[in-house]
């Protein structure tokens, strides 16, 4: 069994991080120059960490599979980033942001981590403004805020509908500056295949140069994974096509434990699926729920007619519309957290009130806001989103309501890390979405950007020094050590094996089938019976994959099929762990909704008595079942309550 020491500092909640920073070990400047750090991933977390570590003077190697660091999928985040600035004078505070995040996460995250996140949130905004991030402003020249789901204050900073892009470009520019200075060496179009352990510590990685196909060994004193979430395990998700779990999955198989794999977030406002050729789902920012009202027809007959194209939504009279979120949750209305909004949409569609050709969609209506505020205000706020919607769906959302449906968006689960963001493998750190994170069982909108940048700019640069401070006597590693050679051989052989299957079915076809299984049994609503079916189904699919997959092309060249095959092979293993975790957690919390555990009104029912812990899964071998470790969650500073958004 792995030993889970969360290393939470003692003391008052509000003092923990300050105390930690005051007493942690640091590395002096001349030693920093000798210490090497590998950062995998160039998203918000990776780029900000690599840049900050480079600024401190460490020798950093930064890897990404994309052709440029600027393309990491953080770029696609639309809505905004939270911070407890209280610029709006509406009663916000660090404590309130902390509390909303804990509550939004359905009491399945660590108090100390979340408080630290809320605490550094303000510094992130300062940092980004200094970097030239053009946040939205008011006419007086000060920063503007908008409100977001799960909060009663306006604390979200935004840059039109492209906040993620602007924050990432800020981090990318800081990273570029360090590249120019020679503190960071950049490796684009390089995909991490495995992590190398020497004497039980993470000492390097094996990567494949995606242009030449060459397998390379890179050594360092510490390895930081910032490789994002694994939502693509569902095939259809809002993740980028290349987003994958390989890095964290390989780390898991080398001994890092995996926290809460079943906590996946289904985002309520995505453009509905339109055909089986669909390659990905497009998110419509949650900020739309600020001004849009969600409804379905009150009468099944109307819904039926709409599905068959006999009725148009604008023909449904006001009294025949069911604004079900406003009806069920009068206090938060359309701004309930994502998991609640998603489940409510599914509930209505399952009950036969869904719209669209497939019946798997609900309306998001702006007519009331357009009448109240004017079309130009709506255009200013959401113009680019409306444009994007029209391009994809071919309907004008200014005239007819948008259709939306939930889709896989974010994974709260990830590699388990302690307060210092280190996994159970010493020297292996995980930041951003890739770790099991501060969001508990559900993430609030505009908090992912906050967490990625908090980890990269303000947390890891401190905590990693505590680890590195006793590594200063260790000379630079040679990537020629037998451990590196062995891991390299294993990684190469695995890819060669994939190429040599020479079966009949494409990689994508397997990926789609895996996605179908997961969406059906491990999606928005889960139950023991379904999960018990899913596990053997995934195992069987995996077996078939290794017997019948077809990978074309050569090893030593750009080969997208081979890249996909490696990623899908890992998804096929991860999918099973997600199902196992979902089956073991006999409660409903946040994004994990077990149909057996709900209140009479259909709300999630937690089991705080028995299940207030982090499930930390430990790999025990290819042919044996993983073991679950538990990190108990102690709530010393907040009262644990049933979430109530009514």
């Amino acid at each position: 069994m792995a030993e889970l020491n969360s290393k939470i500092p003692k003391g008052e909640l509000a003092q923990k991080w300050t105390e930690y920073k005051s007493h942690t070990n640091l590395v002096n400047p001349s030693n920093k120059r000798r210490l090497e750090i590998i950062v995998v991933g160039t998203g918000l977390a990776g780029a900000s960490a690599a840049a900050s570590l480079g600024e401190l003077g460490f020798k950093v190697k930064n890897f990404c599979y994309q052709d440029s660091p600027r393309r990491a999928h953080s770029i696609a985040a639309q809505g905004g980033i939270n911070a407890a600035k209280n610029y709006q004078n509406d009663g916000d505070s660090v404590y309130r942001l902390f509390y909303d995040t804990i509550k939004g996460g359905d009491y399945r995250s660590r108090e100390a981590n979340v408080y630290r996140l809320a605490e550094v949130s303000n510094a992130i905004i300062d940092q980004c403004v200094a970097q030239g991030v053009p946040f939205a402003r008011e006419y007086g020249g000060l920063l503007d805020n908008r409100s977001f789901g799960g909060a009663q204050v306006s604390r979200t900073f935004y840059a039109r509908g492209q906040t993620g892009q602007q924050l990432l470009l800020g981090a990318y520019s800081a990273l570029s500056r360090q590249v120019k200075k020679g503190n960071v060496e950049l490796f684009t179009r390089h995909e991490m295949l495995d992590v190398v352990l020497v004497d039980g510590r993470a000492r390097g990685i094996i990567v494949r140069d995606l242009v030449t196909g060459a397998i390379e060994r890179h050594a360092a004193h510490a390895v930081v994974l910032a490789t994002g979430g694994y939502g693509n395990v569902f095939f259809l998700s809002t993740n980028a096509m290349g987003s994958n779990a390989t890095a964290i999955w390989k780390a898991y198989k080398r001994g890092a434990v995996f926290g809460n794999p079943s906590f996946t977030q289904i985002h309520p406002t995505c453009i509905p699926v339109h055909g089986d050729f669909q390659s990905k789902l497009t998110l419509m920012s949650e900020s739309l729920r600020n001004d849009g009202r969600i409804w379905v027809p009150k009468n099944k007959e109307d819904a039926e007619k709409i599905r068959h194209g006999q009725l148009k939504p604008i023909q449904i009279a006001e009294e025949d519309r069911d604004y079900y979120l406003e009806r069920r949750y009068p206090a938060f209305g359309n701004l309930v957290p994502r998991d609640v909004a998603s489940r409510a949409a599914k509930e209505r569609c399952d009950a036969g009130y869904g719209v669209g050709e497939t019946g798997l969609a609900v309306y998001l209506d702006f007519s009331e806001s357009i009448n109240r505020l004017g079309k130009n205000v709506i255009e200013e706020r959401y113009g680019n989103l409306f444009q994007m919607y029209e391009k994809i769906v071919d309907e004008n959302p200014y005239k007819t309501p948008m259709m939306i449906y939930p889709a896989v968006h974010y994974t709260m689960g990830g590699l388990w890390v302690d307060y210092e963001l280190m996994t159970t493998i010493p020297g292996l750190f995980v930041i951003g979405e890739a770790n099991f994170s501060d969001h508990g069982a559900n993430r609030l909108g505009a908090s992912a950007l906050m967490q990625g940048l908090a980890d990269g700019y303000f947390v890891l640069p401190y905590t990693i020094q505590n680890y590195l401070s006793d590594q200063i006597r260790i000379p630079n590693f040679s990537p020629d050590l037998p451990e590196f050679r062995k891991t390299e051989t294993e990684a190469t052989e695995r890819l060669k094996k994939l190429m040599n299957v020479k079966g009949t079915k494409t990689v994508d076809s397997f990926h789609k089938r895996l996605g179908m299984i997961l969406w059906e049994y491990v999606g928005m609503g889960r139950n023991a019976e379904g999960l018990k079916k899913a596990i053997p189904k995934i195992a069987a699919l995996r077996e078939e994959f290794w017997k019948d997959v077809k990978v074309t092309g050569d090893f030593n060249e750009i080969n997208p099929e081979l890249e996909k095959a490696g990623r899908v092979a890992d998804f096929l293993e991860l999918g099973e762990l997600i199902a196992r975790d979902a089956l073991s957690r006999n409660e409903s919390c946040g994004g994990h909704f077990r149909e057996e555990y709900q209140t009479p009104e259909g709300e999630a029912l937690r089991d705080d008595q028995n299940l207030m812990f982090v499930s930390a899964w430990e790999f025990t071998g290819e042919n044996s079942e993983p073991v679950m470790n538990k990190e108990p969650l102690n709530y010393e500073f907040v009262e644990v309550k049933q979430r109530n958004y009514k």
Partner: protein
Amino acid sequence: MDLTLKIWRQKNASSKGKFVTYKVNDISPNSSFLEMMDILNESLVVKGEDPVAFDHDCREGICGACSLYINGRPHGPDAAITTCQLHMRRFKDGDTIVIEPWRARPFPVLRDLIVDRTSFDKIIQAGGYISVNTGGIPDANAIPIPKINADLSMDAASCIGCGACVAACKNASAMLFVSAKVSQFALLPQGKVEAAERVQAMVAEMDRLGFGNCTNTGACEAECPKEISITNIARMNREFLCSKIGAPKVKIGAGGF
């Protein structure tokens, strides 16, 4: 829809490429252009042929990875979108579509439709940033910024670095890309501090990499998926002139500034 595709195929950077003609059938008008490419690739893989390699990632028009030159226009016939947002309803049944990679000396073809755009990263590394370290920053609201400038800065900052401007320009000039970054910072008080050094360093790097010169034809602006305006190019020219004429002599060291 049934379509004929003429696609540039090239094994690697050093090999000579050629156009290959493919037919795809029963394409839904609601599928995106890249989904049409996926369908083609699936059929190629089943036949045991190498699928067509092309860059793509987010498929929602923001990462800037996708980059096809479709029927003589970067990102295809529609304005203000990327290739991944282009939908097949824009084409007619029976159409022939010619698909080429970006063509520019600083964007060498790596395989099929994939080009190497690291030259854009190099331009940013030369000076596309504000030189602040992490931490120790005054409050975000300490300096008010006129909304109009923040908005103009945001207009410029929305560049996704896809390279369509270079691809569209008859001179393969990168002026729109460079000017967008120069403008973003020049419009903000935080960026003004080192504006002179920045514009000179970025322009020097752009020239060194072998991009063409701007002849003010406006093709870049017409093809930019984010509708970045060539007023940014004028602003960069202005910044550049002022920095040459007005500012003290700029020394750009090897390690940036």
